[in-house]
């Protein structure tokens, strides 16, 4: 990586936690401002999420780091768990994470999976996939009904629930959410601000829908059983729900 200008803070999802990457030369004022700016666009479902802070930054003193932690905890309700060293293995840049996935699959016999360390080819693969899908992301499958009090977070991509999401249950994903059942609870797609995310359910009767920073609730008196597939997405700065007939 060359001297491309880094964003001051970068927010990434990893499994069900968040990772904040702070640029090496940023001052505390810059960092605080950048965090506020970044968080302003986010939904409200992230409270309670674990966040790891990756400090490549050496300009911030311990005291200033604590200020950042306080800001994240008290204003946004994030549970700051550990501060990762920028040099640490766990927080390589995104490129390497993709490689890790390939590496995990390396023992499968598919020839494509053995191209570890061949980024050019890998990228080609992405390009091909891009023709079919708007984005390349991971998917988390939930193969059961989510009951009241259960929360499923996946901050690295899309979520598919093979079951219902009951009232009092919550599903949160950074990408799309697809419920192959009845969505009665709360769903938050695009939880890191991706407003192109959609929510699809076989039966869409949610308590509340959130996409990015947008929130909506169904009009009162919405029939309990819709008997048709519907999709919720952002159209002109509002969530709209319509019959599903392809993206």
């Amino acid at each position, binding site marked *: 990586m060359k001297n491309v200008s880094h964003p001051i803070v970068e927010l990434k999802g990893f499994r069900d936690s968040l990772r904040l990457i702070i640029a090496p030369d940023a001052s505390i004022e810059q960092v605080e401002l950048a965090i506020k700016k970044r968080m302003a666009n986010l939904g409200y479902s992230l409270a309670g999420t674990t966040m790891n802070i990756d400090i490549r930054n050496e300009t911030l003193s311990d005291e200033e780091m604590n200020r950042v932690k306080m800001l994240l905890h008290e204003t946004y309700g994030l549970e700051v768990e550990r501060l990762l060293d920028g040099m640490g293995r766990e927080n390589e840049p995104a490129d390497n994470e993709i490689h890790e996935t390939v590496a995990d699959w390396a023992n499968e016999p598919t020839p494509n999976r053995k191209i570890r360390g061949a980024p050019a080819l890998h990228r080609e693969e992405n390009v091909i996939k891009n023709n079919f899908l708007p984005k390349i992301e991971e998917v988390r499958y939930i193969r059961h009904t989510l*009951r*009241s*009090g*259960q929360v499923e977070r996946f901050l690295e991509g899309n979520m598919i629930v093979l079951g*219902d999401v*009951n*009232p*009092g249950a919550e599903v949160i994903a950074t990408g799309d959410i697809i419920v192959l059942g009845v969505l*009665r609870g709360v769903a938050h797609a695009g939880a890191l601000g991706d407003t192109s995310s959609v929510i699809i359910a076989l039966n869409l009767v949610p308590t509340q829908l959130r996409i990015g920073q947008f929130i909506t609730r169904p009009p009162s008196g919405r029939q*309990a059983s819709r008997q048709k597939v519907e999709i919720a997405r952002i159209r002109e700065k509002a969530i709209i729900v319509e019959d599903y007939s392809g993206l």
Partner: protein
Amino acid sequence: MGKVIVVTSGKGGVGKSTSTANLGTALALLNQRVVVVDADIGLRNLDVIMGLESRVVYTSMDVIEGTCDLDKALVKDRRTKDLHLLAASQKNNKNDIQPEQMKKICLELKEEYDYVLVDSPAGIEQGFRNAAAGADVAIIVTTPEVASVRDADRIIGLLMNMEIDDMGLIINRLAPKMVESGDMMNPDDIIDILSINFIGVVPEDKEIVISTNRGLPTTYNHQSSAGQAYRRIARRIDGEDIPIPEFKPGSWLGNLFKFNSFK
């Protein structure tokens, strides 16, 4: 070897103790050997509802502490053959008992009895965990109210995590007239959400209040619609395949000719 059944709901006041007392009595009337266990440590309800309050000497706490044998702690209900009660201690609280201790009592009881019905306290904390510790089966009681169904759903999730997968749902205090007019949740919607085995509806019945105060379970009263419902549910628990009537307004019995089979 008998079965341990925990009767639970999450929300309070939906009729757990009433259901435990009535189902226990109804099962005993079917010539089963039954013991009902009050797991609501610190509060005592079940003995009062069953009219056995004045005869309680020892409690489950005494058994755990070794003050007395399990057999000796059981209160025999004289009205029905083979119906017994293990009362809860009022001097202690829910954290004085560990799930393991409760489980041990249940295991010992099911050696001797066909049905061990455990009356769970409200809530999802240790009291509930104690009550469910030794259970083979769970009966979830809910009323047709949104909050009650929500809590039942939560409890079902917790029971699944505890690997108690055999569950039955009772919808209590259903008022058919209110369902008809759209003021009360429809049983079908409740079953849809909770999606567990449905074992019966108990209609709203003033007799329950009277019988609870008298300490005589409604099951004994052949005129009471709730009592009849409990007797039917007991037969279903005991393995009989009898249909669940669809309750219609205007008939205290429900319209027995319109059957609705859920199984």
